[in-house]
């Protein structure tokens, strides 16, 4: 955001977050650090492939940004941590079994098309990692939905493919889900620990929550978006999610499965692509939660977090426009978001 002061000779401040570049880098690297527990859990469950896929993503993201800025004679900002964060988040959103070109294409699209073409960090409308993932999901739908069973052995030779909990729920129903996981408690504990099929970084809810708690403590994110996001989703899951009718749904399973924790704390809160005003952020979170559950319960895809955040990204400028405070003073107040 603050980069605009450097790139534009004429400084037009759109956003209330006036920061220097150093603080951008510090925030970005801190978020990367907060994702470390989840990354380690993914290595524990999915083995060296987790390192390979995530590493390729990060490397491509970094190089794309670096080369792009070099080629266009722009100021090089590739080591401010934001490209690395995009790569890391994309890697955490991929299945472990993908061939090498998927991380490369995805990172390239995420960084160059979603971010650099719009003028770099601070101007992108959409969350780059999520666009990268959506692009990959539509381009190689089969390769992107081959999920491998976590083995918790460092070297997994006989990786078995299986369905994600949400996939089972969508296609075969809740009875089958219980059959696979045993009972409710073991389902919850699998979801919490990460012992289930899914994207690399989304499986272990507890590791993500540790990172999120750290970010909340450091005040790099606030509770507004995550709480309204997860709260709305939970209420809808409880109201409409059950087979037997109204009020019989299982909100805990819905919160812990899929990418909801990762999405709500680490991607919906991306300070460039969400509204800047608190009230707007709550609307944004409610929208994310509602669309996620709409897609999960009624839509064609088993998981809706990615599309929900992207759709709300479209609406973020509109929300900002309509809930923007009138007095200038309120804008100037330094709001800590991430």
């Amino acid at each position: 955001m603050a980069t605009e002061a450097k790139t534009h000779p004429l400084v037009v401040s759109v956003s209330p977050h006036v920061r220097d570049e150093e603080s951008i880098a510090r925030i970005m690297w801190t978020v990367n650090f907060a994702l470390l527990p989840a990354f380690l859990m993914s290595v524990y469950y999915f083995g060296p492939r987790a390192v390979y896929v995530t590493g390729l993503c990060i490397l491509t993201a970094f190089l794309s940004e670096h080369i792009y800025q070099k080629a266009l004679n722009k100021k090089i900002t590739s080591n401010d941590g934001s490209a690395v964060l995009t790569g890391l988040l994309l890697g955490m959103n991929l299945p472990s079994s993908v061939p090498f070109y998927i991380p490369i294409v995805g990172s390239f699209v995420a960084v160059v098309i979603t971010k650099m073409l719009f003028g770099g960090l601070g101007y992108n409308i959409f969350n780059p990692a999520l666009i990268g993932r959506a692009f990959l999901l539509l381009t190689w739908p089969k390769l992107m939905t081959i999920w491998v069973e976590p083995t918790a052995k460092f070297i997994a030779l006989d990786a078995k493919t299986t369905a994600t909990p949400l996939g089972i729920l969508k296609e075969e129903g809740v009875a089958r889900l219980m059959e696979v996981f045993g009972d409710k408690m073991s389902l919850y504990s699998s979801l919490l620990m990460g012992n289930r099929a899914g994207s690399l970084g989304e499986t272990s809810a507890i590791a993500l929550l540790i990172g999120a708690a750290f970010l909340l403590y450091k005040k790099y994110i606030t509770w507004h978006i995550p709480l309204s996001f997860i709260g709305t989703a939970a209420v809808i899951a409880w109201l409409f999610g059950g087979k037997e009718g109204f009020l019989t749904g299982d909100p805990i399973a819905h919160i812990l499965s899929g990418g909801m924790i990762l999405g709500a704390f680490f991607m919906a809160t991306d300070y460039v692509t969400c509204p800047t005003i608190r009230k707007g952020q709550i609307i944004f979170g409610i929208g994310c939660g509602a669309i996620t559950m709409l897609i999960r319960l009624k839509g064609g895809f088993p998981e809706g977090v990615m599309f929900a955040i992207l759709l709300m990204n479209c609406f973020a400028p509109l929300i900002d426009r309509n809930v923007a405070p009138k007095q200038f003073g309120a804008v100037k107040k330094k709001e800590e978001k991430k």
Partner: protein
Amino acid sequence: MDFNKLFQLIVAASLINNFVFTRFLGLCIFFGVTKKMETSVGMSITFTAVMVISAALNWVIYKFIMVPMDITFLKIIVFIGVIAALVQSADTIMKKLSPALYYKLGIYLALITTNCIILAVPLINSGENYNFFESMAFGVGSGLGFALALIIMASIREKLELADIPAPFRGLPISFIVAGLIALAFTGFSGLITL
């Protein structure tokens, strides 16, 4: 009358098969007027109104005049004629009854006649054999979907005004890419309703 079906038609026409993002209609207007929020809002209102009225009018003419006379092969000419007449009379009536409204929305009326999105609604209605209420629902859904697209796009383009976009991509090319990214997000709605 099956309200469930009408509701599905509205949702499908506005979100799943959004005119702009999945049917690619009305692109000239979509890229043309979304530079400013105010024009987008004006355009949205005018379009939705004209679309619904023309859907109804054209349905009646198609069903009760063209089909009985077996002149459905003239439908392109008749539909565009009806729309032109409708727009012209709306222009005149608005000027007389509400000059203030005319001052606000009148300029958009002129742009409507040669717009594919308005013509597409009666063409699709006749192609799908929708009944009167279904045609109206389709018109409403299409109008709302188009309005949604215009308003989202306008708000995003306002934000992009300040962005440091590489020179060759400024203006239209980046708008196409934004539209592509929105279309990507709208894919999430697919499968909500089976058509």
